[in-house]
């Protein structure tokens, strides 16, 4: 929060209050992470366990899955994939409510009329999105991590790598949200742009998890997502201006 100006910090409080009152934003920000971080991994893990599949993947497995037993596939492929997915998707979808709706409803005119900079307005929205995302995701991640550790499915190193992945995925998502803020004029367009930005990332996530060996793939994926986000942000800052948010 100290990275933000005093004006932006006041606006962050406003944004969080509004996010917590928005049924659409809350539903989106709760349902997706609950499904991706808790429900799907648990269902997958227990279905593999109850199926008694203790052998490896039959046939020619991709390098990232080679030598993994059924439980390993869940821990080293499915869970990281859903962690990355929730980290990338949830903040950027939530930002549609804070950033795009403000523009669509023309309430941004009220903000511009106040003694704040346009950068304060946009940074406050991104910060609020990140804080709400952290508030939702970290407890859910803790549930997931405790479950994995209690079941003995993986050790603390895996939990640390997963936490790194979640953090980097969220950072990537915030960078995408920034681009979205400057590009999208309405909710519908923003959803289309969001999909356009997220699809290549999902392909990268799957490619890394399927092609790299288990010990390194999660940290590599985390760094790659962070770099992707930062590159997108750098390109956006070179080609787009904050004034676009008002046009």
């Amino acid at each position, binding site marked *: 929060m100290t990275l933000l100006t005093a004006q932006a910090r006041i606006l962050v409080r406003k944004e969080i209050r509004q996010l917590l009152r928005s049924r659409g934003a809350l539903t989106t920000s709760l349902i997706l992470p609950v499904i991706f971080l808790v429900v799907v991994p648990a269902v997958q893990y227990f279905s593999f366990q109850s199926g008694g599949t203790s052998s490896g993947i039959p046939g020619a497995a991709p390098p990232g899955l080679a030598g993994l037993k059924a439980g390993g596939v869940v821990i080293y492929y499915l869970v990281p994939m859903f962690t990355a997915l929730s980290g990338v998707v949830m903040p950027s979808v939530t930002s549609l409510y804070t950033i795009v709706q403000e523009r669509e409803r023309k309430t941004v005119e009220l903000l511009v009329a106040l*003694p704040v900079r346009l950068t304060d307005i946009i940074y406050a929205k991104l910060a609020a999105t990140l804080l709400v995302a952290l508030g939702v995701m970290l407890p859910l991640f803790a549930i997931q991590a405790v479950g994995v550790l209690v079941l003995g499915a993986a050790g603390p190193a895996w939990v640390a790598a997963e936490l790194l992945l979640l953090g980097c995925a969220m950072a990537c998502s915030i960078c995408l949200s920034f681009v979205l803020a400057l590009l999208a004029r309405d909710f519908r367009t923003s959803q289309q742009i969001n999909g356009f930005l997220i699809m290549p990332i999902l392909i990268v996530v799957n490619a890394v998890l399927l092609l790299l060996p288990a010990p390194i793939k999660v940290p590599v994926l985390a760094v790659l997502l962070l770099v992707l986000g930062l590159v997108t942000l750098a390109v956006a800052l070179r080609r787009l201006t904050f004034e*676009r948010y008002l046009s």
Partner: protein
Amino acid sequence: MASALAFAEASKRYRNGKLALDSVSFAIDEGARACLLGPNGAGKSTAIRLLEGALAPTGGRVWLLGEEVGTPWYLEARRRTGVVPQGPGMYPDLSAGEYLGYVRRLYGRGDLDAVVEVFGLGDQLRTRMAQLSGGFQRRLTLAGALLGEPELLLLDEPTVGLDPVATRDVHDYLATVMRQRSTLLCTHNLAEAEKLCDEVVILSAGKVLVHKPLAQLRRESRPRLRLAARQGAEAVLAALKTRGLTAEADGEAVVLAANDARAEAPALLRALLAEGLDVYECTPLEASLETMFLEAVEGRRS
């Protein structure tokens, strides 16, 4: 006298290539109440956006209360400026009271109770902003603009979209609050500008056409004489034509330009009566802002 706001060769070209302001230079003195007029696309809203700091000029410089827009000290000048935006949206998830609370925190000062009382918002503080009537929504934006006890007011079409009763209420509020403050009123409503302002800036196609005190503009505007006769406008027009005078029909009457309407009226009236025209109206007209505005803009176009 110090300037409340100033533009020096300020230009704004948007990324789509449109030149909204073209080397505009004008200043409004502290304490002056100026209106910014112009046809659609003249650059009025862009000028307001530059003063707000929401847009950066692509050329020239802009000052607000002595601080140049874009400098670190500009934000302090913004805290001394109240802005009423043009037809803003209203939050469906914030109450009027919560909004004013944030406004006060952003300005770092302000007597909320006093502003609420002045604008009669006491019963509306718990109402969600989007659920307020149009009149109360406008009162809320005015209250927000005045909460920080600003020295300068920037008003962008403050009554657009309001019904006549709400418009009158807003005019009454503005007339009161503008008395102690420098003001720039951007409007299409010429009657509103005439009622509230004493200085005029007319923009057209991104350039300043006119910047004068309203009284001076009136003095310089060509006087007019309004004539009406029982025989109708056509008969009066024909009689004037025989004297080499051209006039325009205005309903039942005709209006003609004169060098000195009061001096020329008696002789003209005697002549028309002598010709048998039953003239029942002969009135020197003071130039309205609408007339002066149209003269300026149409003169530019021609």
